[in-house]
């Protein structure tokens, strides 16, 4: 009897999970399916889930109509650029806040925390004006600069560093590995899970950034995928759903692949950060 109960519970659970998965996956599948259809197959009395015959032409057309390869390149540059600088700044800041004593340490850390409290949109105008003053508008740097320092990342990493026992630092100092060498040889390797988690969160959020890149760019040469897609929807495709879906599939594919490869790390990172993507 006990076994049956267990089996029934498990079956019920799996049914629910399957249903939820289906609802989640369906839109993506529909995007992919539509992007491979002929225009005439889009609106049919009975929905066609499997496109047949398959039409790859949509993707070629999309690339002819808008420079999506350039958007992709820009996105990669912006996302990795932000992450690269962030890793350096948050590591150094977290080290100083967790391991060095100096006057006003708590106060300065509090200022860092405030950055997490203020909605990013509230800083758009001053950031925009600053960039304008430095003549940086409509550049890739403009999309990256405001995100180079991350209060959230600093906070996350500081907590990780603080959990590393003091005696480890004492041992390292006696081994001749104090200061930044201790950071490099001991703290960073030990805080790697936190760094990976932060990297994933940073990549995902900046890959999907829309508003800020839209505000600071106005030529296709520097635009990112999300802006490119937005422009494409409004100007190029009209109501051509096959082209639109091909573009959407192209824009979302890298993140989906990224997710599939690093699935486990994704889940870990959101558990670690205690927030939802």
């Amino acid at each position, binding site marked *: 009897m006990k076994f049956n109960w267990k089996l029934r519970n498990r079956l019920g659970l799996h049914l629910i999970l399957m249903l939820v998965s289906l609802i989640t996956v369906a839109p993506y599948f529909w995007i992919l399916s539509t992007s491979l259809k002929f225009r005439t197959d889009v609106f049919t009395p009975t929905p066609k889930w499997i496109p047949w015959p398959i039409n790859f032409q949509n993707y070629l057309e999309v690339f002819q109509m808008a420079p999506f390869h350039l958007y992709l390149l820009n996105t990669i540059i912006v996302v990795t650029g932000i992450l690269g600088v962030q890793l350096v700044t948050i590591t150094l800041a977290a080290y100083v806040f967790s391991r060095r004593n100096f006057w006003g340490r708590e106060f300065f850390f509090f200022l860092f925390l405030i950055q997490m409290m203020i909605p990013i949109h509230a800083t758009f105008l001053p950031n925009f004006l600053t960039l304008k003053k430095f003549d940086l508008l409509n550049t890739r740097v403009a999309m990256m600069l405001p995100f180079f320092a991350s209060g959230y990342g600093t906070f996350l990493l500081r907590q990780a560093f603080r959990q590393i026992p003091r005696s480890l630092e004492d041992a390292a*100092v006696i081994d001749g590995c104090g200061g930044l060498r201790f950071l490099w040889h001991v703290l960073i390797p030990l805080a790697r899970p936190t760094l990976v988690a932060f990297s994933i969160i940073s990549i995902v959020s900046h890959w999907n950034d829309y508003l800020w890149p839209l505000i600071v760019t106005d030529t296709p040469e520097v635009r990112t995928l999300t802006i490119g897609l937005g422009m494409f929807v409004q100007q190029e495709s009209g109501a051509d759903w096959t082209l639109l879906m091909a573009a959407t599939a192209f824009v979302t594919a890298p993140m989906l692949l990224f997710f599939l490869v690093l699935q486990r790390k994704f889940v870990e990172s959101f558990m670690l950060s205690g927030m939802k993507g």
Partner: protein
Amino acid sequence: MARVVLQNVSKHFGTVQAVKDFHLTVEDKEFAILVGPSGCGKSTALRMIAGLEEPTTGTISIGDQVVNDLPPKDRDIAMVFQEYALYPHMSVYKNMAFGLKLRKFPKHEIDQRVKEAAEILGIQELLDRKPKQLSGGQRQRVAVGRAIVRKPAVFLFDEPLSNLDAKLRVQMRAELSKLHDRLQTTMIYVTHDQVEAMTMGTKIVVMKDGLIQQVGPPLEVYNEPVNLFVAGFIGSPVMNFIPCRILSKEGRLLIDAGSFQLPIPEKRTSYYHSLVDSEAIFGIRPNDIYDRAFAPETIKGNAVRSVIDVIEPLGSEIHLNVTTGQHNLIAVVDVQTSYRVHQEIELAFDLDRMHLFKKDPPHLRIKAEE
């Protein structure tokens, strides 16, 4: 090889004075133990020798060099910590090699030293493991190994055995003593465990409230404690203390503890004569109190009736908690003693081994020998 000298060293943390006016010389090849209750400043003193804390005043020398301004890595010391402090992301081998690598030793020498140390400590088969795959005892061995490979002039140990279970602690204690014999290097060891202090050290330094109370070989500290604190701290079970008055009766001196009186041995009379009619504290170790039935003939006359409160049979001996008049005492008696709780027992005191302490703090011991 080096001698370590601390002169007039003190350390303040804000308004708290952790170490006060510390004078200590640890000779070359000596195994010195700093012992005292927690918060007595022993770890702070050790950390100052290591260079992990800066002394507020005073000078610290290692060898012939004043090291106050030298960073820890240049002091030619190695330290073993209570929590092992192994780098969790490195293998045992890398943990041991790390310090040498940073000092740019050639690879083959690092390899040779690590393997040599691993052999001494019997951890050859653990070299590829990560610290989390090791037991507490193995971790502590690796931590010691990390210190050995450096071939330092001075080894510093900060309560290295406190995290181990009792059995392993006894084993490691013996191994560290053997290691000291083998390496013939100056070692300074901090512990709150007086058994470790007694069994391992060639010199023990008893501390309390940041002050050194007594420095000397273990048996000297045990037999001739300078004050009540040292007498109570060193030795297990702890020494019995009874407030008393010294009386003179028919040419003999007596200890009057209220509920009983004991005669002071004649050879001590001259030392204690000035105390007649004044108050003092009588101290006697539990091992110097016998069940009268099994006591040496010479002390059978110094017997006092007591009531047994608790019996703790340890196999090799029996600990009795007894009430003698208004005083509670502990006695270590012969295993053949067969009494039950609440029964009366006659306890004989070996007064040749008694101590007297002054009534007023710091309760200095009144000397009874040259």
